[in-house]
């Protein structure tokens, strides 16, 4: 293995922050998906659990995306510039989704007087929660496919549409959506004390686990043609086998845990499974940041910037770690955090 450079370290941290966004922010989007798909006699209560689970945390979870973007334009500005140019259309659409999801959710929370208005905000919130992960996945798929190349003339469609409107990228979009929904369902089993609701979410977790499996298979199949570089990485390289094994082990473990209603174990397993898939993508395109030509080292900023960014991250951890610990000590210790236990946030509320 070649020696890791400073740029590699920062690329790793960038990926770590995206990984955190996929796990935490992704679960918030998945919550919106289950809000949309809420059915049956307990539909209102399902929605309540979801809203309660997302409410206090989605803004903090969202910061991981910002961190990834800022690291991107600070440490790898040529890659950032190229991705934002070629993927202008899907990224803009994704932003519309992010804006609508966040604001509709907040409006629904605070606009608590009319049922009609509540319903309308709910619908905007949940549709944006479905569309945004799809688009995020499409962008990731486009990068992985190696079609995000420096725009060099050609027709509009050729330069700004064809790079991302491919079967492969769309399949990655579907996979992302399935992963987010799966994570959310698994996490939601722990957000309520109500048995019936737990069963509802357990069933959803199992089904979306199947969806994840199918979507992964589709992505792998399409990658032969759609993302040859990634395919080669996924099939051939040295780390491929351990990662595949890890993913497989985690998914089997999650299924077993869900089956036997060990929800805490399922949560850990689902997080591991999704992270394995995520790092599988990362590793498959290493050393390229934007295949087929921009490597991590070539796109990396001058060394001063990289070193200072590392320092800034360290400083940030020093400030954030105790703050986050305090936040969790205040809210996650002691009884009564779920909706099922009455009075969780009584009298506090925003």
């Amino acid at each position, binding site marked *: 293995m070649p020696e890791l450079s400073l740029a590699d370290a920062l690329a790793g941290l960038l990926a770590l922050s995206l990984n955190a966004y996929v796990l935490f922010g992704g679960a918030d989007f998945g919550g919106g998906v289950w809000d949309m798909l809420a059915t049956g006699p307990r539909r209102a209560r399902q929605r309540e659990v979801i809203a309660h689970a997302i409410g206090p945390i989605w803004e903090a979870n969202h910061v991981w995306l910002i961190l990834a973007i800022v690291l991107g*334009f600070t440490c790898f500005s040529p890659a950032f510039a190229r991705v934002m140019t070629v993927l202008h259309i899907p990224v803009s659409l994704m932003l519309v989704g992010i804006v609508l999801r966040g604001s509709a959710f907040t409006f629904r929370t605070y606009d608590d007087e009319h049922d009609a208005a509540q319903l309308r905000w709910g619908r905007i919130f949940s549709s944006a929660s479905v569309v945004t992960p799809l688009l995020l996945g499409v962008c990731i798929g486009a990068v992985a496919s190696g079609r995000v190349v420096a725009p060099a003339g050609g027709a509009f469609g050729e330069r700004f549409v064809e790079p991302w409107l491919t079967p492969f990228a769309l399949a990655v979009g579907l996979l992302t959506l399935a992963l987010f929904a799966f994570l959310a369902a698994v996490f939601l089993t722990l957000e309520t004390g109500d048995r019936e609701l737990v069963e509802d979410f357990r069933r959803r977790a199992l089904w979306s686990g199947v969806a994840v499996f199918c979507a992964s298979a589709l992505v792998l199949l399409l990658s032969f043609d759609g993302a040859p570089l990634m395919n080669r990485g996924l099939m051939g390289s040295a780390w491929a086998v351990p990662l595949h094994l890890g993913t497989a082990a985690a998914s089997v473990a999650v299924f077993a845990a869900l089956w036997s209603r060990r929800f805490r174990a399922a949560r850990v397993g689902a997080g591991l499974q999704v992270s394995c898939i995520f790092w599988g993508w990362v590793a498959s395109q290493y050393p390229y940041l934007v295949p087929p030509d921009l490597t991590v080292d070539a796109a990396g900023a001058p060394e001063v910037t990289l070193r200072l960014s590392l320092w*800034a991250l360290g400083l*940030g951890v020093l*400030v954030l770690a105790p703050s986050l610990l305090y936040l969790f000590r205040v809210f996650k210790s002691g009884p009564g955090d779920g909706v099922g236990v009455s009075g969780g946030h009584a009298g506090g509320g925003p």
Partner: protein
Amino acid sequence: MSDLLAARSQMAMSLAFHIIFAVVGIGMPVLMVVAERRWQKTGDPIYLELARRWAKGTAILFAVGAVSGTVLSFELGLLWPGFMEAAGPIIGMPFSLEGFAFFTEAIFLGVYLYGWNRISARAHLWAGILVAVSGAASGIFVVIANAWMNAPTGFELVNGRIQNLDPIAGMLNPMAFPQTLHMTLASYAATGFAVAGIHAFLLLFDRQNGFHRRALSVALLVGAPAALLQPVSGDLSAKAVARLQPAKLAAMEAHFETGPRAPLLLGGWPDVDREETRYGIRIPGGLSFLAFGDVEAEVTGLRDFPRDEWPNVAIVHLAFQIMVGLGTYLALVSLWAAWVGWRRRDVAGNRPLLVAVALAAPMGFIAIEAGWTVTEVGRQPWIIYGVMRTADAVTSMPGLVYPFAVFTALYCFLGLIVAWLLYRQIIRSPRADEWSRVYAPARPGDA
């Protein structure tokens, strides 16, 4: 609409939208903390009610600030990839620090909003103080990035390319101090007067309402000192602009002819084709004095700059007049309120003063939008002053008028909704039933 113009308009619109929420995120925590402190000292429950309502309003605005800020960080790349490719490694530093300041703010805002009954009164107040401090810090860091665009330092130009970076020197650029000071004060002045103005207006119809009286006094306590300092800090900014961006200063003052004893212009309409300014009042030597501290100093006029390096003179001059006019008004009203308060201690009993404060409600925010117009339009045609032109930084993607239209429509819609929600949830007087019970807002999901 050309693509460049569409990109500039989209950037301007997004920033003009975001800045409102950003400013509220900086100013409101201070108001909340002052009200809560007064409740702890006096035991008067109305102050507690105020702190809680303001916290609720801040939560709504915070969410919109967060999503619109997210859009901005992408837009830097979506619209200006050329700029970000060159400048990212140097201005990324303040943006990373802003990210952490924002993270801290989000964490302690969560503690503040949800922690009323979970932590001690002291800890709760400290959470509020931390929200206020990290809110101000996040604003300061982004403005440092903007100051670098005005006064780029910390690199060498080698064949027109930015090289040999020193990001720390970039952060310590000479516009950073005047701009961050002016912007932070502006946040307190604008938020303070907006809140004071709303409650002053409501007091006009309901003179004895204890809720509005207390709100008015807290808001003025925050807004008035900042508004008094604002002209002083603005003068500092103007002196820095005079030194570092002479073309911008000339446009602000619609000053065409280079010469000593340059007059200060009040009002007036610049005629760019004839290169002269008509109407308006001129104070001889005023501009020389304000810009360089010497009535005899020479001030460079626009004619001495190549024509293609002029910003849009009419817009910059008009925006500058608006900001200074409103700033003068706010400072005078602050003086008046201070005087009344000092003599009779009942600001709410003085009807003319209430009218004056009510009129001031939107003025701080208008001044902020105008001030940013001066800064940003005045920097044109440069995106990095003297180094890179805006036209060279714009994305190669055509059809930019469509995203501009989409985001404009989206933000108009959001703005209307937010205004409506704030009115219903925060501003109107408490109903009788809300007075009678301990205030406990509905939980998410409760109908």
